[in-house]
């Protein structure tokens, strides 16, 4: 008997390692041993593989079966190895030839009847395989669309073990049907023209998108905070190919591709509920470390509604990723780094009961309650929020006016133009967005026009802003200048930025 060899990929976060699977069938007491630090879900593959093989007409070798996964030191997890193990076993058994499977990585979970079920993380697995010089892959049919994003690879997709047998034995390839069905997503339905009125919040959203400035929306329930936030991805520039792959890869690991089309170039939006745990926001997990909301929102928008209701510490966990754009999660199985560059959008009611609006007669909150409520947001997190905008309830006329507001397409054009101007300016610098200009540069090359600087220094003298606030105003004024096509922020840009920052007017 020969040794059956196949290859698959094991993921740690976004990074993958190619795993060599060897299967040996030897005389001895019938048994099955799986070597190479498998976890429980991988141990269970024995029963799935056995059932799948017998149910597809193969004979289970009543001998001593040894399956080795190498490198052996790497802890491995998940059901994605099933298909590769089954094929290695059949090669060792002599049922299938080894030759045609050389140079393939094989991904797929088996169902008991031999159908090949989709797995998480196909895209990052294939990227890892490609980086290690493997150019051919067998993937579950349901993951085919995702896998085909990697045009440099030859992708074969199968829905059932039978199809693989037939292909290996006769060379006949199954006709891939229903492959090109684009997943319907709601992202196409949203448009800024749905938002009635709200001139100020719309503008704030546009500025946030253009400069990458984090945003806080404060307003009573029903004023349209969620509506505005959920439309911000529609005015962000579309992702380029590399970014789209990156985003799809993260969503693939988290198993979230049924909500997001794999081909989507739209910036993602993730809105965790305010009861979300810290691990679900930043990422975590025991055996396999999964990305959290902040990584799913990578290159897109993280929207937290009712932010003051979040548990203590949840929001503060955002501070470090906001600063570094990545999150490193360390667990017993190892430590994993996910990217997390997102635009943070927080929404809050004006007070715990939410009725402190208009004449404020219905509000039952005490002064202390109100202060504590919004106080939960204060401190270091608020230091990273550049724009704070009051969302007032929509007026009667605005609500019934027949003409729609400006559409996302028009706003997005301006955002793209502004980002292009910024990108040209930052050609020789390591940052891309106005919100990322370091304080040092704001005092040097990136100071506003003289009159604007003077205005800010006056405000500083009168203690109306802090030094940190001053920097935020300047960054914001650069975005306003980009939107208005000014070479350098003018006094008017600076004043407008000042108002946007503090939410006044």
């Amino acid at each position, binding site marked *: 008997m020969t040794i059956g060899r196949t290859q698959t990929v094991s993921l740690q976060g976004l990074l993958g390692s190619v795993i060599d699977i060897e299967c040996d069938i030897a005389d001895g007491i019938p048994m099955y041993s799986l070597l190479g630090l498998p976890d429980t879900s991988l141990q269970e593959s024995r029963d799935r593989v056995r059932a799948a093989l017998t149910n597809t007409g193969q004979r289970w070798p009543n001998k001593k079966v040894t399956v080795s996964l190498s490198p052996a030191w790497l802890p491995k997890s998940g059901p994605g190895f099933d298909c590769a193990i089954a094929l290695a076993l059949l090669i060792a058994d002599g049922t299938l030839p080894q030759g045609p499977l050389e140079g393939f990585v094989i991904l797929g979970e088996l169902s008991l009847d031999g159908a090949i079920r989709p797995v998480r993380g196909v895209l990052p697995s294939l990227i890892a395989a490609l980086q290690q010089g493997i150019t051919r892959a067998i993937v579950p049919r349901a993951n085919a669309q995702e896998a085909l994003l990697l045009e440099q690879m030859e992708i074969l997709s199968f829905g059932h073990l039978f199809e693989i047998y037939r292909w290996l034995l006769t060379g006949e390839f199954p006709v891939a049907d229903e492959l090109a069905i684009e997943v319907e997503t709601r992202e196409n339905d949203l448009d800024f023209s749905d938002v009635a009125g709200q001139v100020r919040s719309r503008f704030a959203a546009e500025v946030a998108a253009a400069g990458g400035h984090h945003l806080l929306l404060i307003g009573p329930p029903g004023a349209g905070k969620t509506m505005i936030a959920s439309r911000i991805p529609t005015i962000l520039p579309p992702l380029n190919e590399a970014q789209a792959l990156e985003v799809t890869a993260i969503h693939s690991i988290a198993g979230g591709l049924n909500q997001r089309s794999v081909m989507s170039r739209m910036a993602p939006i993730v809105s965790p509920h305010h009861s979300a745990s810290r691990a679900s926001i930043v990422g975590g997990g025991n055996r396999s470390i999964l990305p959290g909301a902040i990584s799913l929102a990578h290159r897109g928008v993280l929207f937290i509604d009712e932010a003051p209701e979040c548990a203590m510490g949840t929001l503060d966990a955002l501070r470090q990723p906001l600063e570094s754009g990545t999150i490193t999660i360390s667990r017993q199985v190892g430590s994993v780094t996910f990217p997390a560059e997102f635009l943070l959008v927080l929404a809050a009611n004006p007070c715990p009961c939410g009725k402190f609006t208009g004449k*404020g007669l219905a509000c039952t909150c005490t002064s202390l309650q109100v202060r504590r409520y919004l106080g939960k947001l204060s401190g270091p997190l608020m230091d990273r929020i550049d724009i704070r905008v009051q969302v007032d309830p929509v007026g009667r006329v605005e609500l019934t006016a027949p003409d729609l507001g400006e559409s996302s397409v028009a706003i997005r054009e301006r955002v793209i133009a502004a980002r292009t101007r910024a990108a040209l300016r930052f050609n020789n610098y390591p940052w891309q967005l106005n919100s990322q200009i370091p304080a040092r540069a704001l005092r040097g090359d990136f100071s506003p026009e003289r009159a604007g600087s003077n205005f800010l220094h006056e405000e500083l003298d009168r*203690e109306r802003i802090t030094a940190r606030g001053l920097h935020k105003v300047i960054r914001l004024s650069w975005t306003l200048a980009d939107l208005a096509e000014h070479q350098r922020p003018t006094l008017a840009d600076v004043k407008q930025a000042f108002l946007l920052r503090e939410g006044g007017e």
Partner: protein
Amino acid sequence: MDPRDARLLISAHYEAGAPKVAHDIATHGLAEVVAGIPSAQRANLTEIYQSMKSCGGELLIPEDRQWPESLNELAVPPLLLFVKGEINLLSEKSLAIVGTRNPTPYGVRTAQDFAAGFVDREWAIVSGGAYGIDTAAHRGALIAEGATIAVIASGLDSAYPAGNQRLFDEISESGALISEYLPGVTARPHRFLVRNRLIAALSQATLVVEAAFRSGSLRTARDAAELMRPVMAIPGPITAPTSEGCHRLIGERSAELVSSVADAYELLNTLA
């Protein structure tokens, strides 16, 4: 009996702002009222003087030359005042600035600007030392290097809110921190309302910057109106609940609408 001792004993026994005590003093005199306190319940004067000294306050009574006359117009004038800081400041021209503890940036800016503007015109500022508009008013005055008076609703040793302790320290250095409560008395909700009458009486005029529908600062405005002192209010957007109290005062003709420091200054000059 020394009027200082008498007033301290009465203050220690009765809650400040009680109309009956004020009435009794006015009709029967201090000695009579002191005699009405059972000797077993009389406070230890040495202790009071001691605690006053340790918190750095001075005692000011109506019999003193420096007593601000304007307080005597009150129906229930204070029995005494503890002052930490510049005593002579109390008799100077001053503007009270009051408002909500949860202001918007607009309110904070306006309060600071008006405080600074009046300080530039040689007025002192009077406010209550609370968070929000009070703090903004004191800050504005301090930034403009002017004098500001904080009238607090607890003993000078435990000025409330504790989070403003640094502000209180600054105020007592260049302005005055005053209270009609003995050291050791803590802040209680009703004491804020009683205290508000002092803010209204001590100043020549009152400015309400931002006040919600239910707000203690409206009480200050009414106290000022009862004393026939001018009351002014800053308008806000009609959609802003934080300006609703101001709009009500303006709507009821209890307050004059002012929209700039110059406006307010001119208004006060024509009335004076």
